[in-house]
C-alpha cells in the first residue's frame, strides 16, 4: 500500500442524476425518457441487449453524445451543456483506447499532463495507479506489447489517475477472453471499492453485471425496466423482459389465486408485479426445477447437457411443457434421453404474467 | 461544424478542384482550338488520332504491348505465386523482395543497364517493339504482385489445394481450375494496372528507340502540339476508365465477401 492510498472515503464520490434523457437519431429513439440516479460511491451496472440505449446513456453522461432532451446532474451541478473535456470523468472504452505512441506510464499520466501537473508529481501518480492495477513493472512498455487484459488495466489506471468525479466503464471486458474477463471484473470491483468513485458500468453480460454492481439497471428500448440490487433483481424480476434477460427462464402454465400460484402441481408464492388471479404463465428459473428418475414419472428426458459442476436437463412433460432443469451433476448422473422422470418445483417465489 | 470551418473547407476544396481540373479542361480547349489564331472550334486534332498513320500505328503497337505484357505477367507471376504458397513457403520473402524491387530501382537505371540484354533479345527475336514486353513485365511486377497477393491472402490456398488433391486432382489442375477462379478478380486487377502502366510508359520505349504511343505523342509535340494534346487527353481518359473500372471491381469484391 502506498502512503497516498485513498482512505475509505466513500464520501469522495458524488451523486449522479440522469433526468428524463431522450436521444433520437432520425427516426430511432436510442433513449426514451431515461431516469437514473446513482448514489455517491455506488457502482451501478446498466444491463441490456445491444441497441437498448445503455451505451448512449453512458456517452451522454461522459459528454461524448448530446441528449435531445433531459438533464445530466453530477454532484448537484447541471452538466448538460458542459463539454466533455471539462467534465472530469474517467472513461474506460471497450478496447484499443490506449495511445499507441505513448508508454504505459505516459498513457496513465496523460490527463495530468493536460492539467499541467509537474513531471515528478504525475510520474509518481502514474506509478501509484499502475501499482493499484498491478502493472507497476510494465510502466515503460507500449500498449502493443501488452495483452488485452493488461491494456484494459492500464486504461482503468489512466481513467482513475485524474481522480475523476465519475468513473465510466463502457463494456470494458467484452473484448477479453472468458477467464481474464472474470479475473478483471473482480479486480475492477476491488479497485472501485478502494477508491470509492461513483461508477457507471455498461455491459450486456448479466453475470458480469450481477457480480460487480451495487445495483443493476436492466434497460430495454431506451428505458429502464427495473433497477435493483443483484439479488433482488434475480429473485424478484419485475417484468418478463427482466426475468428472461437476467436468467434463463422456463415458461410454465400456472393459475394464481390468493397470492399463490399453482405450477406443475405445486403451490408457490408469487412476487410483486404478477397477475392477481386467473391463468397465466409462470417464469421459473432452471435451478428451481428438479428432476428425479422414476418409472412412473410424468415427464421424459429430452437431452442432458453436462457443464462440469452442474448439468442441464431438458424434459418434456405429458402436459406438453418443455422445461429445463439445472441441477448438481451428481443428481443428473444416470439420466438418459427417453428416461421417465418426476418433475418438481422449489418453493421460491415466481413471477406470473398474463399468458 | 462551425460556419468559418465550413467556409474554410469549401474554399480549400474548391482550390484543389480548380488546380486538378484546370490542366484537364485546358487540354480539351487547346486541342479543339481553331488553328492560326482564328476563332471557333475544330475537331482536326482529334481526327488526326485516326488519320495520322504514324500515330495510328503507335496506338496499335501500344495496345498490343499492353495486351502482351498483361498476358506475360499473368503467365509468369500467377503460377509462381500460387506455387510459392503451396509448395515453397520458405521463398515467400525472396519472391516478394524481387517483385517489389522495381519500385526502388528507377526505370531509367534499368534502361541504362539493359542495353546489353536487349542486344541479345533483338538478335534472337528481331527488332520489334513487342520485345519491350520483357522490360514491361518487370516494370509492372510490383503492382501486379500486390494485387494478386491481396487476392491470394483472402482465400486459404493450402486447404483448397489439399481438398482438390485429395479428390484426385493433379497440380496443374489444382492451379488452373481451383485456385485461379478464386483469385480471378485479383488477377484481372493486376492486368488492368499493367495495361494502364504500359500505355503511359515512355522511358524504355524512347531510350531503346521503339515507336509506342507516348514516344509518338512526344515526337508530334514538336510539330503539331494540338494533336499531341488530343492524344494525351485520349490516353488519359482511356486509362482513367480502366482504373476507375478497377476500383469498381474492388468494391464489388468487398461487398460480395
Amino acid at each position, binding site marked *: 500500500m502506498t502512503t497516498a492510498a485513498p482512505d475509505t472515503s466513500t464520501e469522495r464520490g458524488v451523486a449522479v442524476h440522469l433526468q428524463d434523457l431522450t436521444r433520437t437519431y432520425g427516426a430511432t429513439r436510442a433513449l426514451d425518457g431515461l431516469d437514473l440516479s446513482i448514489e455517491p460511491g455506488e457502482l451501478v451496472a446498466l444491463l441490456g441487449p445491444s441497441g437498448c440505449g445503455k451505451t448512449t446513456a453512458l456517452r451522454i453522461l461522459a459528454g461524448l453524445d448530446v441528449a435531445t432532451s433531459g438533464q445530466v446532474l453530477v454532484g448537484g451541478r447541471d452538466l448538460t451543456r458542459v463539454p466533455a473535456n471539462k467534465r472530469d470523468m474517467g472513461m474506460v472504452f471497450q478496447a484499443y483506447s490506449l495511445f499507441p505512441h505513448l508508454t504505459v506510464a505516459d498513457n496513465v499520466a496523460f490527463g495530468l499532463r493536460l492539467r499541467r501537473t509537474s513531471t515528478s508529481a504525475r510520474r509518481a501518480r502514474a506509478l501509484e495507479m499502475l501499482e493499484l492495477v498491478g502493472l507497476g513493472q510494465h510502466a515503460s512498455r507500449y500498449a502493443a506489447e501488452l495483452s488485452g487484459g493488461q491494456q484494459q488495466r492500464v486504461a482503468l489506471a489512466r481513467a482513475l489517475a485524474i481522480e475523476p468525479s465519475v468513473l465510466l466503464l463502457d463494456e470494458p471486458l467484452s473484448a477479453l477472453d472468458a477467464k481474464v474477463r472474470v479475473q478483471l471484473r473482480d479486480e475492477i470491483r476491488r479497485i472501485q471499492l478502494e477508491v470509492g468513485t461513483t461508477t457507471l458500468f455498461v455491459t450486456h453480460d448479466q453475470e458480469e453485471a450481477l457480480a460487480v454492481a451495487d445495483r443493476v439497471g436492466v434497460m430495454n428500448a431506451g428505458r429502464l425496466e427495473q433497477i435493483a440490487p443483484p439479488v433482488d433483481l434475480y429473485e424478484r424480476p419485475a417484468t418478463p423482459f427482466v426475468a428472461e434477460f437476467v436468467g434463463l427462464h422456463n415458461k410454465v402454465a400456472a393459475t394464481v389465486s390468493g397470492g399463490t400460484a399453482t405450477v406443475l402441481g405445486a403451490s408457490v408464492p408469487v412476487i410483486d408485479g404478477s397477475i392477481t388471479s386467473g391463468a397465466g404463465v409462470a417464469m421459473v428459473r432452471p435451478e428451481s426445477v428438479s428432476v428425479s428418475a422414476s418409472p412412473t414419472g410424468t415427464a421424459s428426458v429430452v437431452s442432458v447437457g453436462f457443464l462440469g459442476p452442474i448439468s442441464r436437463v431438458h424434459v418434456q412433460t405429458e402436459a406438453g411443457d418443455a422445461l429445463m432443469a439445472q441441477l448438481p451433476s451428481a443428481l443428473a448422473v444416470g439420466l438418459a434421453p427417453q428416461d421417465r422422470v418426476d418433475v418438481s418445483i422449489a418453493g421460491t417465489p415466481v413471477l406470473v404474467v398474463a399468458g | 461544424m462551425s460556419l468559418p470551418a465550413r467556409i474554410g473547407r469549401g474554399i480549400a476544396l474548391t482550390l484543389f478542384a480548380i488546380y486538378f481540373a484546370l490542366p484537364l479542361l485546358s487540354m480539351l480547349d487547346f486541342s479543339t482550338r481553331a488553328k492560326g489564331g482564328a476563332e471557333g472550334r475544330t475537331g482536326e486534332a482529334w481526327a488526326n488520332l485516326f488519320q495520322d498513320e504514324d500515330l495510328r500505328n503507335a496506338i496499335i503497337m501500344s495496345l498490343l504491348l499492353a495486351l502482351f505484357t498483361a498476358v506475360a505477367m499473368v503467365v509468369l507471376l500467377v503460377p509462381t505465386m500460387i506455387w510459392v504458397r503451396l509448395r515453397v513457403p520458405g521463398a515467400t520473402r525472396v519472391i516478394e523482395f524481387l517483385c517489389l524491387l522495381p519500385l526502388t530501382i*528507377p526505370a531509367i537505371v534499368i534502361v*541504362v543497364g539493359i542495353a546489353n*540484354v536487349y542486344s541479345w533479345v533483338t538478335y534472337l527475336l528481331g527488332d520489334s517493339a513487342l520485345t519491350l514486353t520483357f522490360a514491361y513485365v518487370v516494370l509492372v511486377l510490383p503492382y501486379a504482385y500486390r494485387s494478386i497477393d491481396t487476392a491470394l491472402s483472402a482465400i486459404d490456398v493450402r486447404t483448397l489445394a489439399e481438398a482438390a488433391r485429395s479428390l484426385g486432382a493433379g497440380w496443374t489442375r489444382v492451379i488452373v481450375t481451383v485456385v485461379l477462379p478464386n483469385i480471378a478478380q485479383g488477377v484481372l486487377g493486376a492486368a488492368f494496372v499493367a495495361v494502364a502502366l504500359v500505355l503511359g510508359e*515512355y522511358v524504355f520505349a524512347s531510350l531503346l528507340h521503339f515507336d509506342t504511343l*507516348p514516344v509518338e505523342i512526344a515526337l508530334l509535340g514538336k510539330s503539331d502540339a494540338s494533336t499531341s494534346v488530343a492524344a494525351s487527353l485520349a490516353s488519359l481518359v482511356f486509362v482513367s476508365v480502366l482504373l476507375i473500372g478497377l476500383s469498381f471491381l474492388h468494391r464489388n469484391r468487398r461487398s460480395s465477401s
Partner: protein
Amino acid sequence: MSSTHASGGRRLAAAAPALGLVPFLLFIGIFLVVPTVTVVATSFQGADGGLTLDNIRALGSEAALTTLWHSIILAGSTAIIGGALGALLAWLVVSAGPTSRLRRVTLAVSGVLAQFGGVPLAFAFIATLGFSGVLTEALRSWPGVDIWGGGWLFGLKGLIVVYCYFQIPLMVLVFVPALDGLRVQWREAAVNLGASRWQYWRHVAVPLLTPAFLGSVLLLFANAFAAYATAAVLVSQGNPITPLLIRSALTSEVLLGQANLGFALALEMIVVVAVVMTLYALLLRRTSRWMR
C-alpha cells in the same frame, strides 16, 4: 520406415518444388538483376574495359553535382509541397466521413492522377501554361498579366509545378489510410481526459501521424527523383536533372569526357534511392515498437 536407401531421392524430392520457381527467377535474373549489376559494374569500367574510378570521379564534377543538386531540390520540394497539400486534402476527405461522395470521388481521381506522370502530363501543362496555353492566354487578355515569363515552365521551376500534379494525389492515396487508422476511441479518450481540440492534435494525432507522414514524404521523394518522362518532354534546353543527364550520356557518345558516365550516374541514382529507403527503414524501426 527404413529411410537409408531412399534419403538421396527424398532430398531430391524435397528440392523439386523449388524448381517450379526457376522460370520466374530466370526472368527476373535476366531483366532486372543483370541490368542492375551491369550498371554497378560498368560504372567502374573505362572505355577500354579496364577497372577505373574515373567515372565515379566525374560524378564530382561541377556539372554533375549541380544536376544532382537540382534533382534533389526538385524531388525534395515536390515531396514537401505534395506531402503537405496532399495531407491537407486527405484530411478534408477523411473528415467528410467514410461513405461520403467527396471521399469516393477524390480517391478515384487520385488513383488516376497519381499514375498520370509521363508524356500526357507534360502536354497537359503545355496546354495550360505554355506560350499559347489556355491559362496563359486568358490571363494575357485579362488582366493583362504575363505568366509565360520567358518559359519558366520548361525549366526546373516548371518541373516543380508539374510534378506536384501527381505528387499531391499520390500523397492522398498513401495518407488516407493513415488518417483512417486514427481511432475514434483515441480522440474520445483524450477529450475525456480533458484535452481540448488543439491539445488532442498536439499530443495525440500529430505524434501518431508523424511516422506515416514522413514515410509518405520519403516515398514521394523517391517517386519524383526517379521520374523521367515528363521532364524529358518538357525540358527543351540543357539537362537540369540527373535522369536527363543520363539521357545525354546515353545518346551522345562522350559526356564530360567519360565513356561510361551514364552508368555512374545511374549508380548515383541507385545510391540516392537506397539512402532514402534506409531512412525509411530506420523510421519504421524507430516506431515499430508501438506500431502494429
